[in-house]
């Protein structure tokens, strides 16, 4: 089965390559790229599901370069399979969406290179989770980073897109540097003997670390993988790169690619074995900070895709809270807490992949139809794009953790882990559980505020601009993917009791507990999730019943349409009927109370023209929330590094002879050092 997976991954790249080679015929190239990649990804999804069902545990190892510890070693286990589900599934969906998005959004533009890099991104993500050797992993990791960088800079003629691409490239390279050091810490060169056929020393089965080295590896993994995942304060590239990329690329990167960072952390934790408590504490605190900061910064944004990018930071925080409570459960020897925490955190990986790609696709369709990503220039899209709006509101409710959708199920598992720790654990563990419960609750409350804002301001009310008023529903290639993913969100929400059966063995493998203990977590959470499913079904039936009663009552009575009752204050619009679009609450005014309450971390800049006359003719207001860490930490740090390095500029004067001399001198020094 693993050979089939490798084959489909290769096929994805081949379709991308075919798309590039057919660039002379743009229509054919576009079709081959999108449909081919979607079909190959679906084949990969089918292979993943059957491998998961069959309990496949096969692996392939081919010799590569034993001196540097490399071998072409790949393997399949439940963790790999679990991450392959969103990788293949959402790549297919996003490719279909991208087909419509690119041909409508960028007519006449060649997409061959785009599809090649898209294919490379998909198959390198698959290889990242399949790899069982450090060198192979890093190569796949780099291909993933570089191909996604190419996808981000699709609109490379725009200055801000190039700047965003550079930020992303620098961030991802710094992350990789930490990973390189991390693998060197874990690998022991020479242990393998270096003969062909034996395991190379960077094979995952050969990696280990203990004591302080293990803690160093944990921290390196946290920084290296955390940069990709987007934990605070390493998240600064996310709000730059995601708005710059085309929407289906944002969906794939934010939904799926950043999760490879979570995969990396979990894989390293599996290699390292039993954790000291402070690892769990670190993850809990990182999760709490990322979650709360992510949602606060999201709340302050006006650009809908920037808002969604910050929400990815928030959800990575929730995942870290789950993993952290799971690690603490493992450290303090309570398998139920460990299993619930890991199951919740990992299930949230899949759930966030679904609703975040759904939201990015919905936001992409909306901003494409209205010609802007500024929420304060949208409005009234729900009546013009009902299908997209339906998909978006399901995603918005799911990401806010509302029942009966999938976000609630994974957050419930994390909550259960925390409450279980609080009810039964030692004081230290219960304190962490209290932090988790408080952080999750605050995140949940703020997420409702943030997504009622994102949905309400963009899709409801009156259109704020003529462009928004003229918006039309997106084509089927864009609405069908949106609704498909929305249906998946609802399905996992209503069938959460099946999800726990899937998650428990995986969580057992990750937390290093016996599979028999997985029965404990099913016994703990299974019946509850069945009740949650029942409650969800009752909710749907009740709502349908109440709507039917209303329809029945109103069927014989007059149902009129009129203007919104605005307490007599309404200034009529051009048609003298509806509330004036400009008087509606905007995204800034909706979020203002919370923004000014949390002004300490947010530091929103506000500028307005004071009112001086009795009847002011015009007024101005502008607010902008820069990223605290980008402005306060990274910009000064990089400026400092740049200043230091510019002192060495005298070495770089452009004389070729002297450059040759540098090379010769370096060689000589190396030679002397080696001989002595």
């Amino acid at each position, binding site marked *: 089965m693993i050979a089939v997976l490798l084959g489909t991954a290769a096929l994805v790249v081949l379709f991308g390559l075919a798309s590039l080679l057919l660039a002379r015929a743009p229509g054919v190239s576009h079709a081959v790229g999108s449909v081919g990649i979607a079909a190959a990804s679906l084949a990969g999804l089918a292979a993943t599901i059957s491998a998961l069902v069959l309990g496949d545990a096969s692996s392939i190892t081919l010799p590569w370069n034993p001196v540097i510890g490399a071998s072409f070693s790949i393997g399949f286990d439940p963790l790999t399979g679990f991450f392959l589900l969103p990788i293949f599934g959402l790549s297919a969906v996003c490719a279909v969406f991208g087909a419509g998005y690119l041909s409508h959004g960028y007519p006449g533009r060649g997409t061959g290179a785009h599809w090649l890099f898209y294919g490379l991104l998909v198959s390198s993500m698959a290889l990242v989770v399949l790899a069982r050797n450090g060198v192979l992993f890093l190569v796949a990791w780099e291909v993933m980073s570089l191909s996604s960088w190419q996808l981000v800079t699709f609109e490379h003629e725009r200055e801000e897109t190039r700047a965003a691409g550079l930020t992303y490239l620098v961030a991802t390279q710094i992350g990789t540097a930490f990973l390189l050091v991390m693998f060197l810490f874990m690998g022991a060169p020479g242990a393998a003997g270096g003969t062909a056929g034996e395991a190379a020393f960077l094979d995952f089965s050969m990696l280990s670390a203990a004591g302080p080295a293990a803690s160093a590896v944990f921290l390196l993994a946290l920084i290296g993988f955390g940069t990709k995942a987007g934990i605070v304060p390493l998240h600064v590239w996310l709000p730059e790169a995601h708005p710059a990329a085309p929407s289906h690329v944002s969906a794939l990167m934010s939904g799926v690619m950043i999760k490879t960072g979570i995969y990396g952390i979990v894989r390293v934790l599996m290699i390292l074995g039993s954790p000291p408590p402070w690892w769990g504490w670190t993850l809990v605190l990182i999760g709490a900070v990322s979650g709360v900061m992510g949602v606060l910064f999201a709340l302050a944004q006006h650009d809908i895709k920037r808002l969604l990018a910050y929400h990815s930071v928030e959800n990575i925080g929730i995942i870290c809270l789950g993993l952290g409570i799971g690690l603490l459960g493992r450290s303090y020897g309570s398998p139920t807490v460990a299993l619930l925490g890991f199951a919740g955190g990992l299930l949230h990986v899949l759930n966030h992949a679904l609703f975040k790609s759904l939201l990015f696709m919905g936001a992409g369709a909306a901003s494409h139809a209205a010609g802007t990503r500024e929420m304060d220039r949208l409005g009234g899209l729900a009546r013009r794009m009902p299908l997209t709006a339906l998909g978006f509101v399901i995603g918005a409710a799911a990401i806010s953790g509302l029942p009966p959708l999938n976000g609630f199920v994974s957050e419930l598992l994390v909550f259960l882990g925390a409450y279980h720790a*609080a*009810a039964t654990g*030692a004081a230290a563990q*219960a304190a962490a559980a209290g932090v988790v419960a408080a952080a999750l609750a*605050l995140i949940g409350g703020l997420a409702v*505020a943030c997504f009622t804002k994102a949905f309400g301001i963009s899709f409801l*009310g009156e259109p704020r601009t003529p462009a928004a008023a003229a918006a039309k529903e997106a084509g089927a290639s864009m609405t069908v993917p949106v609704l498909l993913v929305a249906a998946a969100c609802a399905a996992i929400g209503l069938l959460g009791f099946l999800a726990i059966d899937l998650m428990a063995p995986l969580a057992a493998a990750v937390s290093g507990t016996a599979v028999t203990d997985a029965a404990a977590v099913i016994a703990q959470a299974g019946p509850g999730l069945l009740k949650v499913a029942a409650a969800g079904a009752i909710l749907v039936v009740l709502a349908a019943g109440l709507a039917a009663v209303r329809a029945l009552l*109103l069927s014989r009575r007059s149902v009129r349409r009129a203007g919104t009752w*605005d307490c007599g204050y309404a200034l009529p619009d051009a048609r003298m009927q509806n509330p004036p679009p400009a008087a509606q609450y905007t995204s800034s005014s909706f979020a203002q109370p919370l923004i000014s309450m949390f002004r300490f971390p947010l530091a929103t800049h506000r500028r307005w023209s004071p009112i001086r006359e009795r009847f002011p003719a015009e007024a101005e207001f502008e607010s902008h929330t820069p990223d605290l860490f980008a402005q306060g930490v990274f910009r000064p740090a990089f400026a400092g590094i740049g200043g230091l390095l510019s002192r060495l500029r005298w070495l770089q004067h452009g004389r070729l002879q002297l450059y040759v001399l540098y090379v010769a001198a370096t060689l000589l020094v190396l030679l002397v050092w080696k001989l002595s």
Partner: protein
Amino acid sequence: MSETLRAVIQLLAALLLAPVLLGIVNRVKAVFAGRRGSPLLQAWYDVAKLLGKSAVYSRTTGWVFKAGPVVGLSAMILCVALLPWTGAPTLLAFDGDLVLLVGLLALARFVTIAAALDTGSAFEGMGASREAWFSSLGEPALLVGLASLARIRGSLSIAGVFAGSVDLAAPGGARFVSGPAAFGGAGAVFGGASSAFSGAVMILAAVALFIVFLAENARIPVDDPATHLELTMIHEVMVLDHGGVDLAYIQYGASLKLWVLGGLVVSLLAPRTGSWYLDVAVSLAGLAVVAAATGVVESIMARLRLVRVPQLLVAALAMSALGLCLALVGGPGGQLALTAGGTP
């Protein structure tokens, strides 16, 4: 009487009696103001009247506006179904049902805010913004309070956490309910101390819960249910554009919400007698007392200035957090954990 029958009676009684709580609140306010006041069943009369009306919908609104009252009321009915206010376990009870309850409250809030924003009115946008603001602070207060109760009660379900304050039927006379551990083994040695801990945690949680109860139900000092045209308007202004059947759903849903959150406060504080019939009577009396207390608060207090409301909610959160800290020292199931549960 079988458990199922009790659960069904508990649910139906709640659905029927919930609007009466509003009647009690208004009657108490009327007495304070020297008026005779409206009938106790006025809320039911209002719902019946509204159900008979025809409808006017704004041209600006769409399906989101129509979905709001329907989904909101459905969520509230489910919340009532989750509430074991008489002490009998509900049909939907499970370990962690309190998270579902909080999630359903959030769902109702989400659809109400969305429906308000669908009207395009600045008034309703203002109410929606404030509702999102206050509830994002109320939710942590509620959930942290629940975590502290989960620890002293050693339980994850509403039925276990809100199992009443004093168990009159317990061996050795009345004592605080604090989980099975307190009744035997090591807990017995520290029985007095652990009861004191449990009592303190419970009182802190109850106060936090009462503040959340007032805020979530849009009562004074957070919001004034009697007005929708003042600058502190929150909940009433959000539903300004709803009428007829939709408004009936919303008002009935509001009375259910009063019942649910009031029921939590009562279940936490009311003593458990051992007899279900007595428990029902005690709980009903307790709910009436909570409603009367709400009326008293509304009669003797002014509404807080808007910027002061978050401070009240943060105070509730602080009390919940303090309760959790005490519960951490108190140990799981109310045992004094200074010896039993230090670092492993």
